[in-house]
């Protein structure tokens, strides 16, 4: 896809970089996102103060590299949880005791990252306070533009809507409000005419 064809709402990501202006850091990583956090910690070096940093990771074994950087330093808090869902549930309690001056770093599968962003926005975080990187599966949450139901973990270009059952074309338009890509009836022009279903989002 060329630059010109790109859908402007589709998020783009770059590797996390540490923002030394923050006084406290909260690092949240899910599955392969844990490696993304480790990369950032390595890059930050001495500028990242472990005693002002809390880490909340889970849903995957982390690599030896990550182990070195997360396991051996005296972070103010370090929690390892078993699933993305447990991670998401643990976040509000942490944000409740955080103060202005915090920077939040989130890495993991795209769907997870935007779920965390939604929680952060509920707490009034501005984009300046929020650093994100998608790493891991790009499986999509798809909102049906006809029945509004969400279909989770979509990896194919065409999917059966979990709500109304229509075959949906999974489009690149991404809604930050709904945290989902848009899907619309694939055979809207000629009913019953379906292109081949292929895996595209890994």
């Amino acid at each position, binding site marked *: 896809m060329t630059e010109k064809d790109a859908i402007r709402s589709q998020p783009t990501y770059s590797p996390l970089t540490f923002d030394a*202006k*923050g006084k406290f850091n909260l690092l949240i990583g899910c599955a392969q996102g844990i490696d993304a956090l480790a990369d950032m910690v390595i890059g930050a070096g001495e500028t990242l103060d472990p005693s002002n940093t809390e880490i909340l990771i889970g849903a995957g074994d982390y690599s030896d590299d990550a182990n070195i950087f997360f396991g051996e330093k005296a972070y103010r808090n370090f929690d390892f949880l078993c699933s993305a869902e447990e991670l998401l549930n643990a976040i509000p309690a942490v944000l409740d005791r*955080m103060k*202005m001056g915090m920077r939040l770093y989130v890495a993991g599968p795209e769907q997870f990252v935007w779920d965390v962003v939604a929680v952060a926005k509920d*707490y009034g975080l*501005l984009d300046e*306070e929020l650093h994100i990187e998608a790493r891991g599966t790009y499986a999509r949450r798809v909102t049906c533009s006809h029945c509004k139901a969400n279909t989770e973990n979509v990896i194919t270009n065409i999917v059966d809507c979990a709500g109304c059952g229509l075959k949906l074309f999974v489009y690149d338009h991404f809604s930050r409000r709904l945290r989902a890509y848009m899907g619309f009836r694939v055979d809207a022009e000629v009913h019953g005419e379906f292109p081949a279903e292929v895996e595209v989002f890994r």
Partner: protein
Amino acid sequence: MIHKKIIPVAVTAIRELTPLIKEFTLTAQDGVKLPPISGGGHTVVVMPDADKPHKNPYSLVATSDDQSSYTIAVRREEMGRGGSIYMHDQVKVGSELQISTPANLFPIYKLAKKHLLVAGGIGITPFMAYLKDLPFLDGTLELHYSVRSLEHAAFLDELKDVMNDGLFVYAGEREDERVNLHKLLADQPLGTHVYVCGPTGMVDAVLKAAEELGWPSGAVHYEVFKAPETGNPFMVQLRESGKTVKVGANETLLEALENQGLEIDYSCRGGACGLCKTTVLDGDVEHRDFYLTDEEKSSNKLIMPCVSRCKSDLLALDL
């Protein structure tokens, strides 16, 4: 484009709030309805009958329920250029003035989870309008109000009436009686926005503390109107119209241009809004505004004529 409308008003009430602050009720003539205001909005008051036509920006304190009048509060500035003295000494009930349509350079960020208002002295005025726009939910609104002494605290009774727990007044001289801005900003929950209006020293202290504590710049709001200060006189060459204009020591460049009949768009007349930005062709600009970036200032190609002046004897403008 000049998008300003001048509205004729009459003074219908004057209230002495403190020994130095008077509140004026400005009522539109002929039953005209005034535009609605939002917390933080201001208007420019034009004093046409003064010996020189002052145009001073004032925060809007309130609007009447029927939209027929606004109230403003004016502090008497002995060291100012005369506008506030004129308001205090010459303006009476029945006096006729003009005001500009309101603009707002200091709006409330409605998505904030908590609003932390920091006022110093006459800097309380925009917050009086804020309080009408903000919901009074416990823990989501605090006003920290510093004054020289309680005698100088305008609107104190009104504030006590409308605010529950969130009002903190600092009226002491001692260090431990004054607001500790660093401590205040160090202990705020996520989603807090701070708004400061007061003397330059107080605004600077909030900006400094916020930066040191890692606050994102988007959560820090400040009103930076600054009364234009006097300076050395200089000559201005208007290359487009071929005129040469003298700017006196006690006059701003914008006023001198207006006296020549030039219509220059403006809103704040305090170096904040950017509307009067003018292209410089020659001369050494003395920047006194808050609007231009450091890069723009050092390029010496732009000037905000409402506050800025010229260090050299001659300034050439593209007008």
